[in-house]
């Protein structure tokens, strides 16, 4: 039987250890290499504890095989208590916790290798990463709108610390833009929540669902839906609300971009998925499918077209993130089991691939290579880094045997299944555009002559997290069964919800 302690422990481990991290970093600031090793050991302890907690939860969940699709657990013990914060455990949230912990481990260690430790802010930076991981996991477990709102808005707001870390004029500007949009989004969501509370008298996911499903007069619900959808769309950077993302991710340090794209972005898609499909308005309640299908088509087309004209590589990768939102939306709008499985697989694969790409761009940037022109001929000068970049890029493009292919296959097939064949066709065509600009990057790396003959030394140690993720991409592409087995219980759960 899963208790509240099982659910809270991974969240609590991350949040409390983040506070201790600040103190620890104050002590290790003066020590140079030794300090870094100490922090690394500390991280190892935290993550081992977190992994144990997640492991325990996953084992208990899969052993219990619950009959109710959404297993709701509250602090007070009363399942649908009005003001008691509820946590929801289902295979989606358990799966997300596992993948968030995995990616967080890798990206945090990358950050540890990249960030200058003697800078007084390094401690806060690491702490914020751990804190965000905790909040993102909290978002995945939220069982009512208020808990979701609290965890998710903390995540969105705290992301700005990671964005602004470099404190360059660009990053300050971009973070300001981001914050303004996030605040507007929160206001929208709060407004929608108040309407939902007014019509249903509760904020618990399951209770809200039951009431909305039988409701006759849907006019208020439509308004609430629009505000809610707009609010979460801003945070997920869906076109036309995508403008903050390229600026923010380009200006932020590479480790921040990697972290945000691997965890926070994926969580934002999760929120959309949960709110749209599971709770608020399954397509049977409100016919939102066409609207979101059009928006996802727009997101794919615009994200990819903008990237086509981009010469800054980091910005190019951020446009790929926008395109990824579009692909995720395709699966969400299809509202099929295959689509949800595709989404969940995409959360892992898209997260790993974008994180990998940003980490690699970080390595290239530290050598002073920023634009496509700068990347000329790096293929021979930095063979390992370039090989990893090549694999990341091919995974984005959906070329088998890399993991991106399986994800895209599931997404597009789900669109066909959801009777959205036109969306699938737009999807694959934009995927070809994506291949074109990504291959252009490869072309610069391998086909062009290097500008100067200076031999570049690859930072071997930074390549460790990179190579782990690259390896994961290949394994997930060749043998996706191990992850898909984790996801597959969803087929049974979703049938209870959608139909």
């Amino acid at each position, binding site marked *: 039987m899963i208790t509240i302690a099982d659910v809270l422990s991974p969240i609590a481990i991350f949040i409390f250890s983040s506070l201790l991290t600040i103190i620890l970093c104050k002590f290790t600031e003066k020590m140079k290499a030794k300090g870094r090793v100490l922090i690394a050991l500390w991280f190892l302890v935290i993550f081992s504890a977190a992994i144990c907690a997640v492991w325990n939860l996953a084992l208990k969940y899969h052993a219990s095989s619950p009959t109710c699709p959404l297993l709701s657990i509250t602090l007070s013990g009363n399942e649908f208590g009005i003001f008691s914060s509820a946590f929801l455990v289902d295979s989606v949230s358990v799966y997300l916790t596992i993948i968030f912990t995995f990616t967080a481990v890798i990206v945090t260690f990358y950050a540890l290798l990249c960030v200058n430790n003697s800078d007084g802010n390094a401690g806060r930076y690491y702490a914020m990463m751990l804190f965000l991981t905790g909040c993102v996991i909290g978002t995945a477990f939220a069982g009512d709108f208020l808990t979701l709102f609290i965890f998710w808005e903390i995540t969105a707001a705290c992301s700005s610390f990671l964005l602004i870390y470099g404190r360059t004029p660009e990053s300050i500007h971009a973070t300001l833009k981001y914050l303004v949009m996030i605040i507007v989004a929160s206001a929208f969501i709060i407004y929608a929540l108040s309407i939902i509370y007014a019509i249903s008298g509760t904020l618990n996911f399951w209770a809200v669902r039951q009431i909305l499903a039988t409701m006759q007069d849907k006019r208020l619900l439509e308004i609430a839906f629009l505000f809610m959808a707009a609010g979460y769309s801003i945070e997920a950077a869906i076109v036309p609300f995508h403008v903050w993302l390229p600026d923010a991710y380009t200006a932020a340090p590479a480790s921040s971009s990697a972290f945000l794209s691997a965890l926070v972005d994926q969580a934002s898609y999760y929120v959309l998925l949960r709110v749209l499909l599971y709770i608020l308005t399954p397509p049977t309640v409100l016919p939102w499918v066409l609207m979101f299908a059009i928006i996802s088509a727009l997101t794919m087309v615009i994200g990819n077209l903008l990237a086509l004209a981009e010469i800054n590589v980091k910005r190019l990768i951020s446009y790929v993130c926008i395109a990824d939102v579009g692909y995720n939306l395709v699966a969400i709008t299809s509202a099929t089991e295959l689509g949800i499985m595709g989404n969940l697989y995409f959360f892992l694969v898209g997260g790993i691939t974008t994180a990998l790409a940003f980490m690699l761009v970080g390595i290239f940037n530290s050598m002073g290579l920023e634009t496509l022109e700068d990347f000329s001929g790096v293929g021979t000068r930095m063979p390992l880094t370039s090989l990893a970049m090549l694999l990341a890029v*091919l995974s984005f493009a959906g070329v088998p045997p890399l993991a991106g292919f399986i994800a895209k296959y*599931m997404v597009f*097939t789900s669109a066909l299944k959801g009777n959205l064949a036109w969306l699938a066709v737009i999807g694959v065509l934009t995927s070809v555009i994506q291949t074109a600009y990504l291959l252009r990057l490869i072309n610069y790396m391998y086909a062009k002559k290097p500008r100067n003959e200076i031999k570049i030394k690859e930072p071997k140690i930074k390549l460790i997290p990179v190579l782990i993720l690259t390896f994961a991409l290949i394994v997930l592409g060749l043998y996706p069964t191990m992850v898909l087995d984790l996801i597959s219980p969803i087929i049974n759960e979703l049938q209870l919800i959608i139909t």
Partner: protein
Amino acid sequence: MVPYCLLLALLLPVLSTPFIFILGKRSYKLAALLLVLVCLADLALFLSVSPTIISGVSNKYVESYLWIPVLHSSLTLFMDGVSLSMAVITLTLVMAATVFSIDYMHAKEGLAEYFALLTLLTVGLVGVFITSNLMLFYFCWEMMLVPAYFIIGHWGYRDAYRAAFKFFIFTHAGAVFVLLGIGAIFLVTGSLDIFQAQSALLSVDEELVKWILISFTIGFAVKMAIVPVHMWLPDAHSEAPAPMSALLSGVIISAGAYAILRISLETVFPALMATEFASNFLHGMTIFGLLSAFFGSLISLVENDIKRIIAYSSIAHMGYVLFGLSMFPFREALTGAILHLVTHAVSKGLLFLTAGAVMKQLEIRDIREMGGLAGQMPITAISSATAALSIAGIPPFACFISEFIMFTGAFKAIGMDGFYLAPTALMLVATVLSLAYSLRLFSYVFLGQPKHEKIMDVPLMMKISMLFLAATVIFLGIWPTQVIHLILSAIPA
């Protein structure tokens, strides 16, 4: 027969790739040797299956392993007469290309990477022919892209990466249509196995099957370089290094034709057999085949770049094959078309190798500046003559047999469906054109007065490789019985 032999045959090149790379760092010759050994081992594994196919109760041999159960996808490998002949010819060409590369590429850098990429390419090529699972098929289909991109780009001539880029984007764009088709088949039949899908599709709405068929065929036609989606071929084939051109023209575009046969026609098409659309579709294929044949032959006649002539001739020959495939319901014409894939692969591969040999010794590519090489490069000249005559369709060389069977089949088809009368007549004209450009190519390059002095024939390894393929061409021309037998065993009567 070895247990798990198809799985072994697929995994052997994959697993040997790192070793070939490491060996190649020490000596590229050892890497090439290892690759040849891998190909020979694969060949032995495949041939060990052949008795089962020919004499067995079932006309195919199947192995199945668990892979992605959630997506109903298992690692199913199978082998029937057609796959066996394609796989064998692929390995033969890969071996010839590898041996040719030893001397042809010896001055180039990064040969360890070259041979490792060649091995990966082999995995994709062989895999396409021996799998009946659409997911694995797509894996192998796209596996060809990346190694081919780098081999063309890095070791090619002139602005090779540009040609490679074009190749990648075109074939990938074609492949996404294939992917849509695969997704649709998965949805309507719940299976990704082509044999299960074939029977399941019979009960599916015809309108939907029509779209699946079109989507597949467009996707495969890009790889096959059928006019009007042929644009990638002349660049890619002419800029690639000669061994790669041989593989591109020999096997990669044949893989497109094979996929049209195996998936479009054998799997999806039967569900539409009774409809009016079916005959329209086949007639459409005939017309596109005709277009490609004429387009390729005519450009080939006026082109002066040695490799571009051969490249355009490949378009023409894929036109013949498509023409043959369009007579799908007629067994003989279909046999001819499939046999033509085999014979054309060897002949065209050989022709590209000889062109590479000439270009290596002369370092020019305009055939008007060549001449009289027959005396200076006798072995190359003999091989080239064999290949050119085979391409021209002259007995006793390989392509004659296949074209002969195809046209006999076409005459029979005319009796059943009057539509084929005009296309067959026109196609016969196209074969005359192929005779014209083959002879033009050969006489410009090898006959007449020598225009260059002190030209030596190519080194030993290149000679061995060319003579080996030339012998195969003649052998297939004189004694094609075994191959025809194999192909017929796979086509239901």
